[in-house]
């Protein structure tokens, strides 16, 4: 491990690696997991909340899921402070596109634009990279429903199912086994929750430790971003058999 080449983000190591970028990814692998599954009629995002204390005030806003625009949402894994900056940047980029073209920004272009920002921090400026990975879920009229994963290097890819954060390799291989191409939204919800529950290291699972969101089309043809309430999520966990009903003693 060439420690002498660590300190500057903007230079390569002799092996051709960018250590700061890799260290950023290391930070993310300790953060709460997030899983995305692409269905033929929607995209599902499920995430694990790292609830550290009973004293944390449960605000109305979410911890891992964020709306970027009416047709795009994302799940976050990594350093929350870095994530907030990038989410704001993504929101501004989406609005600037709409101001110029009077149309919603195509999902891939939004992801690419944000990744271009992230890439800048690996090549110039001398600032460290952002310690965040994203799962973007969105819809546009050209390519329908899409799921993208991006990491601190500024690299991104389109996925049918993806996982970021803690235990993401295990989650990814589980998704690879169980994913089918023509999966429906209902099945995608089940798959995402099942895989997430298996890779989380807590013994008891409940809605307080999870967040669930989906992007779908309403009956009027408008894109809808929905976040599940704690009650609905608990009911869903019971229906899918992921949690057992409380035994009456």
């Amino acid at each position, binding site marked *: 491990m060439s420690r002498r080449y660590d300190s500057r983000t903007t230079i390569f190591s002799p092996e051709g690696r960018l250590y700061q970028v890799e260290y950023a990814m290391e930070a993310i692998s300790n953060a709460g997991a997030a899983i995305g599954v692409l269905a033929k009629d929607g995209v599902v995002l499920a995430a694990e909340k790292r609830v550290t204390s009973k004293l944390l005030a449960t605000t*109305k806003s979410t911890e891992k899921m964020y709306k970027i*625009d009416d047709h795009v949402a994302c799940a976050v894994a990594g350093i929350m402070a870095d994530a907030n900056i990038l989410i*704001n940047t993504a*929101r501004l980029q989406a*609005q600037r596109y*709409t*101001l110029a073209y009077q149309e919603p920004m195509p999902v891939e272009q939004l992801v690419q634009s944000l990744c271009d920002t992230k890439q800048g921090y690996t090549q110039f400026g001398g600032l460290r990279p952002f310690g965040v990975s994203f799962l973007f879920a969105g819809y546009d009229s050209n390519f329908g429903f899409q799921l993208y994963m991006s990491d601190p290097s500024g690299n991104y890819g389109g996925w049918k199912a993806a996982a970021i954060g803690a235990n993401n390799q295990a989650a990814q291989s589980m998704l690879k086994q169980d994913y089918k191409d023509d999966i429906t939204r209902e099945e995608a919800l089940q798959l995402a929750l099942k895989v997430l529950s298996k890779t989380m290291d807590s013994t008891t699972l409940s809605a307080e430790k999870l967040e669930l969101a989906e992007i779908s089309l309403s009956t009027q043809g408008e894109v809808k971003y929905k976040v599940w309430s704690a009650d609905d999520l608990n009911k869903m966990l019971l229906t899918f058999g992921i949690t057992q009903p409380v035994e009456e003693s």
Partner: protein
Amino acid sequence: SIMSYNGGVVIAMKGKGCVAIAADRRLGVRGHTVAMDFQKIFEMGPHLYVGLPGLATDTITVAQRLKFRLNMYELRENRRITPKTFASVVANLLYERRFGPYFVEPVIAGIDTKTGEPYICNTDLIGCLNEPDDFVVSGTCVEQAFGMCEALWEPDLEPLDLFETISQALVNAFDRDAMSGWGAVVHVIEKDKVTVRTVKTRMD
């Protein structure tokens, strides 16, 4: 004059638990009428509307830029904007261009969904807010509009009566102005619904 190049007028009035905002539909190039379906009132929220009379290109551009700021606000704050706060956003956007302004004099009408309180206001082209309790007017026939509103308005009008009042005030005002008219559109905003009506007018 730049403000009367395209022509147009917008009025808003307060009623009992409701507000109404109305505008003509003309788009002209000096004296030549070019469109009779030009939109001057824009929806900024389920119970919040802004009317932008003045130079037509600025009408469109200011509406788009306001939508930008409004979207960012709603994403960050995770809630709908209130009419009073929105008025501040409008005033701020206009004052940013203090020495090269947008040639629009906006009219804002809405209902604060939390309190049910009706709200109207208007600003000048550089963002000076005016928040009266009765009615606001803006456009090429403000003098006529002021006269009509002052004569017809009374407090606590019910939604249907408010519709009649604002329609008559608008139509009779712009009938005395060559640069406004060619149809009218009226929005009546109540706590639970918004009704949009187009009024049949003289097309000259």
